[in-house]
């Protein structure tokens, strides 16, 4: 990828993560059903960092999470950690993208990242001295359906977003 293309790609990825963070704090609360909700931040980070370099991807995940933490009323740091880990998971799983395609890749990565994010959301309040739900009930009734729903969402839209993110290389003439 040419340098200009790489820069364009980073800019697009950054905009995508920022938009995802904004949707996470404004739209997601209106679409929450019990313990299940669309995780726009995770979806955005996983898809946005898929073609970035490792350090760029991790930093983008971190600052996307920071933005979510700042805009939301939640415990600060949880979104940042969730964003970093989502980026790391996306980097780890992206090797399968060529084999299985963009949709299944996004679905797998998002499912794993949502499980991690939900577990963070479970243990962070407990660490902060707040009341937490029963772990077994939350895992069965919250984490699993949440991961499945978001994996489905990623499967449906991940391919299209990845195409939007792709920058065509300019040929030397």
């Amino acid at each position: 990828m040419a340098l200009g293309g790489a820069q364009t790609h980073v800019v697009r990825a950054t905009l995508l993560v920022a938009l995802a963070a904004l949707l996470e704090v404004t739209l997601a609360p209106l679409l929450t059903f019990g313990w299940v909700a669309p995780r726009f931040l995770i979806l955005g980070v996983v898809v946005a960092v898929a073609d970035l370099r490792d350090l760029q991807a991790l930093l983008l995940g971190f600052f996307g999470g920071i933005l979510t933490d700042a805009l939301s009323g939640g415990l600060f740091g949880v979104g940042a950690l969730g964003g970093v880990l989502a980026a790391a998971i996306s980097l780890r799983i992206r090797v399968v993208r060529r084999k299985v395609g963009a949709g299944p890749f996004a679905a797998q990565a998002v499912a794993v990242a949502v499980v991690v994010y939900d577990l963070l959301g479970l243990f962070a309040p407990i660490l902060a001295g707040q009341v937490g739900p029963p772990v077994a009930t939350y895992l069965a009734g919250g984490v699993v359906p949440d991961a499945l729903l978001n994996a489905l969402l990623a499967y449906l839209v991940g391919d299209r977003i990845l195409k939007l993110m792709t920058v065509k290389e300019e040929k030397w003439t």
Partner: protein
Amino acid sequence: LGRSRKSSAASSLVALITLCVASLVLFTIYVKEDDSGPLHTVQLGAAEVLRPVRGLFGLATSPFSAASERVEGALDASEKKELEARALEYEEGAAEAARLRDENERLRELLDGERPSFTYSPLARVVAPVGGQLTERVVINVGSDHGVRPEQPVVVGNNTLIGRTTERVTPNTAEVLLVTDQNFAAGVRILPPKALQGETDEESTTAGESTSGESAAEDASAASEREPDFGADSHGEGLLRTSWEGYLGVDYVDLNADAEQGDFVVTSGRAGGRELLFPPGLLVGTVESVSSQDINQYKNIVVAPAAEADDLQDVRVIVDW
């Protein structure tokens, strides 16, 4: 080439660990700092900035929820469609009239039910729910400019407690932690119906009547208008909390307490060691069931809330008492 890849992987791992540690440091600072700390201040400012965006999304999604209700209704109506369509026109008119009448009554009750010893904020509307799958919170459109401060009781109707303000109070908004949130707790007292009902109602109302359907709702509504008689025999005291199964209940009620179905649950003015977090006498609900087991030290009491959190529209904050 192999050495370069190893070096790249190692640097990525170092970056990952560093960023994870940075996240944990931020988390620790946030938990340790007080409400005026820098991270809390950032969130407070962001909440104020995002208020119009949240309102816009709330407005944008309302047609979808209305449309989904209509679609559900259409799918269910497989028979008698013509008659139902005709009836619908009349019902819509009647429903609109009923809605306006209810709204009128509700707003009138809010104003008529004021207790002289309380100072209320202006009437507030519920703007939006707050994110987080483990929380039950809403944002209302009054804030510090209207005298609202953190940890003040929020009521609906005639002094029916529905929650308290959190530390997130901006000049024009305030976040409310609802009684149905698992982190909400309030010291409550269980009172027999006669303690909250006027002398004229005392003879005509029995405990059995007060637990049945509309009668219970009317009794609860009427009860919240009156100052409770704390001189009456209390049927027990405890801590109001919502279990993770979603049941609103009163914990730590002594096995010897006389709590029974139909009793009213009102705030006692104490929440653990914190004195007067809520003023005494705010109605929370009625006792739905009482049970006890030999192995338990306390009674199991389930409470039917006097106000449904899902139907919240207009609320007021008690800013002084």
